[in-house]
């Protein structure tokens, strides 16, 4: 398991954090857990796109490591369609996932 945190340059404030697993035999990066700081969730958030940046970074890591990469996560059942709409993820079993085209889109969108 590898943990990444997103911070503003020149600040010690953590905006978000993510823990991922590299599943080598499947060329897959699995997002185990992702959290955005309380002040950046909901209507009155200070910054938007924190989770998007972190997921895009997971995509970057997958592309660096694997020739045919995939990024996945297991959503709460009630949130599955929301992840699909928000990040362009596709449904595969209980997971939602991104393949190369979706990963590229997210990486370019968030300029990771």
């Amino acid at each position: 398991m590898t943990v990444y945190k997103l911070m503003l340059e020149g600040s010690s404030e953590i905006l978000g954090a993510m823990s991922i697993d590299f599943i080598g035999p499947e060329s897959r990066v699995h997002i185990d857990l992702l959290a955005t700081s309380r002040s950046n969730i909901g209507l009155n958030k200070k910054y938007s796109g924190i989770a998007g940046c972190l997921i895009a970074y997971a995509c970057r890591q997958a592309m660096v490591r694997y020739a045919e990469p995939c990024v996945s996560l297991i959503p709460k059942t009630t949130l599955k369609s929301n992840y699909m709409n928000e990040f362009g993820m596709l449904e595969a079993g209980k997971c939602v996932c991104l393949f190369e085209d979706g990963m590229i889109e997210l990486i370019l969108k968030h300029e990771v």
Partner: protein
Amino acid sequence: MMTKKEVLKDFSNDELAASLVFKAKQSKSAKKKDAQAILKLKKTKMSDSTEMNEILSALLRFRFKIEDYLNNVEFDQSLTFSACLKEYIQLIQKKQKEFASDINMQQTELSQIINKHRKPPHGFEVRLAIHSNGTIPAKYWCKIIDKENEFELLNDPKVWDTESKNVLRKLTINE
């Protein structure tokens, strides 16, 4: 700190999906099922992939490689400006002649730059960035050149020898 229950109560599904991924427990057999479903979907997606997507993907990987190299202090002989330029042309699947025409340059001039017989003209880094539609930014090309120049300068004994002769008096600093 908010509990999971409070978080689920306080925010809409859209807000939650845009900000969080909850940890999920899965049995071995469920993991296996998911892996199979992902593999099946991946095969379909790969067969739909276009040549343009493949080029973009290769270019992004190339960009990440450059980023990692530039963040590393070590100089890498395989990532000189000419080597990177050569790789860029290969990745976009063009012949040197075709690429030279794309960037309004004589093929001979391009070939001399690639073979390190000529320095790139002023602004060439910007021309390359425009050609890649910003995928490889101009500053990356500039930094690649800087890193190479720094290495060559600092590791050239002739330069040190010549410049030592030019310093007629140097500071004496006692530690």
